[in-house]
């Protein structure tokens, strides 16, 4: 197990390095500098600015400087928010995103697994067809279409829930953003669970359990659920990435001051260091969460450790 875990951790390092190098090069290959937008600066001022941000150094120097900062958790100063560092901006926004993402993931797992299991137990019936039809629709409709339609329905027309974030407190403000973010994942997880549950329910050990006189609920809970969850567990990596991507849209629509909204703002403001910092932050987050999922997979299914 230790060997497996270490192998996984070392496997993730090249991916992270690749992300950092690619992202750094992309930003620095950009035609035009970060201060081009503003009024024409006197040559001396421009040179001072460049020197202050070390933009006058050769590229490899800048990269090494950036890397050594990165290792200390310092992502450099923001170009747009003068006097603030990228790490500060991300640190202030991150708690909002974590709460939103964790709630959405929990909702997606709970609802998706339940719906998928019910559909599998009633395979071929109307219930099954409805679950599958609804989930196919859920997969096809992107978050940025679901979000405004839910807002239009529940906030603008029915006035049941708040449309935005500011001025609201408590649980109510979470309801629409979390549901929006979870819906496509619920759909996907339901389909995955159904398919693997049907396969597991056809296995011999389930027949044996049934023959012993166990009820359906016990068979599913005690025997079928764990093996049927393996494909769902391996989908957690992509699901995390999808929820991060989705949170960019959801935070933008509902006005939640999280990392996603910060990302869009900094992209529009052309705040190069902040965009770069957030890309690296997101990539690190995705890679490390994938790592956790991989290691968990090894804990639950010993077969993969020995491959």
């Amino acid at each position: 197990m230790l060997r497996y875990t270490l192998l996984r951790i070392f496997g993730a390092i090249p991916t992270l390095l690749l992300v950092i190098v690619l992202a750094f090069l992309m930003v620095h290959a950009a035609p035009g500098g970060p201060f081009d937008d503003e009024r024409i600066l006197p040559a001396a001022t421009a040179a001072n600015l460049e020197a202050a941000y070390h933009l006058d150094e050769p590229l490899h120097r800048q990269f090494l400087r950036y890397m050594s900062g990165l290792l200390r958790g310092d992502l450099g100063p923001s170009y747009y928010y003068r006097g603030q560092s990228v790490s500060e901006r991300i640190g202030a926004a991150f708690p909002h995103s974590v709460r939103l993402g964790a709630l959405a993931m929990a909702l997606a797992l709970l609802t998706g697994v339940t719906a998928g299991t019910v559909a599998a137990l009633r395979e071929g019936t109307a219930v099954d067809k409805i679950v599958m039809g609804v989930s196919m629709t859920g997969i096809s409709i992107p978050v940025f279409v679901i979000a405004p339609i839910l807002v239009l329905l529940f906030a603008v027309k029915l006035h049941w829930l708040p449309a935005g974030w500011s001025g609201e407190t408590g649980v109510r403000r979470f309801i629409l953003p979390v549901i929006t973010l979870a819906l496509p994942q619920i759909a996907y997880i339901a389909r995955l669970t159904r398919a693997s549950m049907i396969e597991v329910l056809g296995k011999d050990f389930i027949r044996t359990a049934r023959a012993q006189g166990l009820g359906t609920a016990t068979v599913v809970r005690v025997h079928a659920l764990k093996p049927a969850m393996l494909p769902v567990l391996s989908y957690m990596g992509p699901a995390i990435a999808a929820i991060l991507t989705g949170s960019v849209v959801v935070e933008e629509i509902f006005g939640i001051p999280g990392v996603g909204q910060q990302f869009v703002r900094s992209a529009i403001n052309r705040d190069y260091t902040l965009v770069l910092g957030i890309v690296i932050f997101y990539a690190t987050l995705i890679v490390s969460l994938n790592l956790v999922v991989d290691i968990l997979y090894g804990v639950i299914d010993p077969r993969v450790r020995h491959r």
Partner: protein
Amino acid sequence: MIGNRTIRMAGGILLAVAAAALVGPWLSPHDYAATNFDRILASPSLGDMHLFGTDDLGRDLFVRTMLGIRVTLLVAIVASLVSLVIGVAYGAIAGFVGGRVDAVMMRLVDTLYALPFIFFVILLMVAFERNFLLIFVAIGAINWLDMARIVRGQTLSLREREFVEAARLTGVSTLRIVFRHIAPNLIGIVVVYVTLTIPQAILVESFLSFLGLGVQEPQTSLGALVNSGVGLMGRASWALLIPATLLALVLMCFNFLGDGLRDAFDARHES
């Protein structure tokens, strides 16, 4: 054959939408960029040919929506072609050469898989000033990984088949084997997977345009229309609902078409 009916339905709807997008703007008396401040946020009506109403600048939303569909489909098709070329070439080389080259090439694909590509596309958009051509290339550059894997797998198994061996024994050159004997057998699976990459490309394009990082005004796409619809939904729900429905419809049809084609083509998936 339920699959067959799904394919026909989805394909038919897509053709109808594409035809409407091509012909629609011609039949309308309005221009996509012309503003009319006397007719701001007019609701959909047949009377003055504002079938889908107007937006907050008084521009005709029918013509704009049809143009948006054109842009969305064009971006998606071009991006898919880019990913097709990269993916097929990469996968076929890895699969045909095999051995250590294959292992290294596929290891690279695995590593790239773990990258959050959408964020890189946004980074590109920031760095290169939202160059429209770049959107095609960037989206295409995202989507080739799946294609490479599938083509590689298929090539790997084709390489061992008797007819390839026979060709090799009769002295056919490697290049000729790849183009005359292996490539034709890849067409089916490639077509299926292109229909599955198109909706992914549509998603990325509309995601970018929705965030205001894609197509720039007065040009438009379905994602950009949904975005401006969000701002108007309190006063003009049609400005949101029509492009949102069309976008969902197009995506759903491509997904059903791709799934149906895959089932029809690959019997193993049917179970």
